[in-house]
């Protein structure tokens, strides 16, 4: 009796929940409305079956519970009834399958003339490549990937020279233009998913996968990885910005081609030495850092990281938060460097400076810190020397008080909350793993031993 009532309540509750649920598809931003429609069709067909079968079940329990009808009815088979049920079910299945397959036929047919963009996934971020003027993407090889060639471009293939490389997790697409996304992965399986687009596809190392869509709404959309790709899977975030045509073209024109990136010369340390003079006031002549002036040690830090931080300070990505008192001080100094060439020169000078061991100023439980560091080691390396591919700077042998303060800043949102600070926002999510300042001190205490 109670069971029959419970079943009825569960059926009605489920139907109510369905209609009252605050969670439903995000507003669509692509041409795939028909996917939403097939979902709706499926909801109707399965919903009717769900209600009918379970209410009938509840009724059968109520009507035929023991003590009411006496003996059960002996009826091994009822061919006619069984056939009708089979036919009815088949019709319902066909009603769902047919529209599904019809939409799938469109999914597998990329419209002619669709623009092509390559999405390149890696642990734990994305970058993108446009074919450039010749409309052709150059060939690539995972074995060519290095700090200077993160896309693994094949230099011998001239078709790749005009490819436009977007070394940032933010992709811009023009509205109302069909685009075929070619997907490639450097290391492990990933997936490029934007919920508002509905369509998505895994990216698999060793092969090129694809899907297509037409963006139908301007705006910014989160790109997520939905294929487990390791420790920081949940923090792998990108952004797709759908622009009007002109805005898109302007954005694309700002991105460097592969040829451009190859022309970039190494910094000149002798030029950089002069540029470094103002820096010495705080960071010291040997870039050894100065705690009293809140200036961290720079010597020994990876060049690519210093370059990006200087660019970020200059472009307002870092130091923009009100709470970032010391970061703000850095902005005018970074702005004194006229262009990227100047930044590379000064960083080249820093790279020449001796890497002295800084003073230990943070003390914590090293054993506990070792456990915390397991999480960090995925990006920063077991030895704390940093890994360029994961955009993770060196931690070992750097100013420990500075590391502790940055962890606090990440936790408080003082650092890593700027919308264009993709790698900082990843670090902010990771910093949340540390429960309190004690955990931070334990961790840094361990990092000091590396």
């Amino acid at each position, binding site marked *: 009796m109670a069971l029959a009532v419970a079943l009825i309540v569960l059926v009605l509750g489920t139907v109510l929940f369905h209609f009252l649920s605050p969670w439903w598809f995000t507003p669509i931003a692509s041409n795939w409305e028909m996917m939403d429609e097939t979902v709706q069709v499926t909801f109707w067909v399965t919903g009717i079956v769900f209600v009918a079968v379970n209410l009938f079940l509840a009724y059968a329990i109520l009507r035929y519970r*023991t003590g009411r009808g006496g003996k059960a*009815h002996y009826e091994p088979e009822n061919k006619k009834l069984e056939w009708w049920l089979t036919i009815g079910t088949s019709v319902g299945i066909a009603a769902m399958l047919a529209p599904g397959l019809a939409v799938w036929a469109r999914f597998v047919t990329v419209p002619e003339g669709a623009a092509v963009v390559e999405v390149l996934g890696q642990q734990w971020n994305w970058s993108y490549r446009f074919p450039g003027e010749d409309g052709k993407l150059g060939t690539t090889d995972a074995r060519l*990937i290095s700090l200077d060639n993160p896309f693994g471009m094949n230099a011998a293939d001239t078709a790749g020279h005009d490819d436009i490389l977007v070394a940032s997790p933010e992709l811009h697409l023009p509205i109302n233009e069909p685009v075929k996304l070619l997907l490639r992965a450097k290391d492990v*399986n990933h997936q490029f998913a934007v919920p508002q687009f509905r369509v998505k596809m895994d990216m698999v*190392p060793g*092969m090129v996968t694809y899907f297509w869509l037409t963006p139908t709404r301007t705006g910014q959309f989160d790109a997520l990885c939905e294929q487990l790709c390791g420790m920081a899977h949940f923090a792998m975030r990108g952004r797709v910005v759908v622009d009007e045509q002109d805005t898109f073209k302007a954005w694309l024109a700002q991105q460097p081609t592969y040829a451009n990136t190859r022309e970039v010369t190494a910094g000149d340390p002798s030029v950089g030495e002069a540029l470094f003079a103002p820096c010495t006031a705080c960071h010291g002549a040997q870039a050894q850092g100065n705690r009293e002036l809140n200036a961290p040690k720079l010597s020994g830090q990876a060049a690519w990281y210093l370059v990006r931080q200087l660019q970020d300070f200059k472009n307002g990505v870092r130091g923009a938060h009100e709470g970032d008192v010391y970061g703000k001080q850095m902005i005018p100094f970074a702005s004194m460097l006229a262009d990227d060439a100047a930044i590379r020169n000064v960083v080249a000078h820093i790279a020449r400076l001796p890497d002295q061991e800084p003073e230990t100023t943070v003390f914590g439980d090293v054993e506990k810190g070792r456990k915390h560091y*397991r999480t960090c080691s995925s990006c920063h390396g077991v030895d704390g020397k940093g890994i360029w591919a994961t955009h993770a700077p060196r931690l070992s042998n750097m100013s420990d008080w500075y590391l502790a303060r940055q962890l606090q800043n990440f936790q408080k949102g003082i650092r890593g909350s700027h919308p264009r600070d993709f790698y900082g926002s990843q670090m902010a999510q990771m910093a949340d793993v540390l429960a309190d300042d004690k955990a931070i001190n334990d961790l840094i205490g361990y990092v000091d031993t590396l």
Partner: protein
Amino acid sequence: MAFVAIADRDHEHALHDPQSFIRKYIWSQDHKVIAVQYAIVAIAIGLVALTMSVLMRLQLGFPDTFAFIAPENYYQFITMHGMIMVIYLLTALFLGGFGNYLIPLMCGSRDMVFPYMNMLSFWVYLLAVLVLVAGMFVPGGPTGAGWTLYPPQAILPGTPGASWGIICMLASLAIFIVAFTMGGLNYVTTVLQARCRGMTLMRMPLSVWGIFTASILGLLAFPALFVSAVMMMLDSLVGTSFFMPAVASMGEPSRYSGGSPLLFQHLFWFFGHPEVYIVALPAFGIVSDLLSTHARRNIFGYRMMVWAILAIGCLSFVVWAHHMYISGMNPYFGFFFATTTLIIAVPTAIKVYNWVLTIWRGDVHLTVPMLFAIGFIFTFVNGGLTGLFLGNVTVDVPLSGTYFVVAHFHMVMGVSPILVVFGAIYHWYPKMTGRMLDETLGKIHFWATFIGTYAIYLPMHYLGILGVPRRYYAYSNSIEFIPPSVHEVNQWITISALFVAAVQMVFLFNLVWSLRHGKPSGDNPWRATTLEWQTPDTPPKHGNWGKDLPVVYRWAYDYSVPSAPQDFIPQNVPPDDRTPAGREHGVKS
């Protein structure tokens, strides 16, 4: 009457009931003891997996609260939880546990045909579990690659347990498959060769049909997992490139080249999809018998049920790539696999109709096993219907990788079979121990589990439609489309999960307490027709049947036969004035 080789020569085999404690309970060759051994180990390791699910729910419901759950731990929990529940709990319990216990008893055999191999099967299974547990204590901890263990991720840095953990996992799986093969060959051969006289295939209880078919599926599907485990171990240890293309891991070029990650996925799901039915078919069979017994009515459409089991078994081998619609395989495969997947819904739906129609016009006794059986119908209808979303390639695309998938497979493959496991334990415990489980505790257990699990999984479907991705350690506030209400409902889900997990302790208590204090059950407390209830002793002794094997005269479902005074006629009762022949089909009496 069918000629059955082993039953006709039964008198040639002398029975030696072992007397020493060790031969009787430890190195036992008695299928009933082996069944209990399997069940105890499966439930014990299942409790570990249950604890892990509690830990990951704590992290999801209350992120940043539990400092000891770091991202790598979370991924290790989800991996181990999934693998243990699917393989080491459900597969082992349904086949090694119920298969072992029920096949010889229900078929009227003395034991499995290869008792020594049956014993080995259990001990090798135990070894597999021990290697699995050992993998939790190696440097770097267990693997956190997700239960699907996809390469290249599973063996590259950046994934927890990518060196030692994954090797232990793969080794444990390979050992498990050895154990299963010894058991599976036994189950299949016993059903084919050792049925008693009169037990034609079309008179077998559906429990046996389900377990029998599932064992065949296992024998055909597990080798795919076995070879992929071996190949991945070679990739990891020796440096072969079966599944490994040229990659740049952490910015460094690797030694691999030319392998195919998708090959692993095909092999894994060629095993993985039949695996769903390796768990589901025994559940289908067992629940059919529970419903029929407690509704005092013949199972409706027996022959259709048997053919449906066989049809599902065959079809289950041609649907695997519906797990891979957006894996990057050629998208044209989607047409084929969506069609086969939706076709499999037809025999499955027939089974559901026939269960409901068995209750219809029955004499329904709402005993504890019956509550679980009916609860199963509800959860299975729910989980089966959401399968029609994910099986239909177009509908799958926006939903795959989200919480909709989590909700679907937990309803259909977690909650549904486990409700059958519980129902079956309440049903057969009296035969195994001679005592009834406590009914009040059983009802508490049922209601809390049934309602509690629905409270966990119903909202998850809608989070999935919103697009909330699964396998995320935390949901940063910076994901714009995820509103705060998602975090709130995650807390509620966690609270429900804690509640459901806690209530399972009531069940464990009941299992232990009733051993001593349960009401004595007698030989056939449910007044059931099948052979296991007709044994001369309860619990049955070694050899099951005393001096003479039973002889079967009718199908397994002669409940409420018209003009019979009692509402059930056991299978071994010959037709008579007071026990008229039933109107079974498929056999001429």
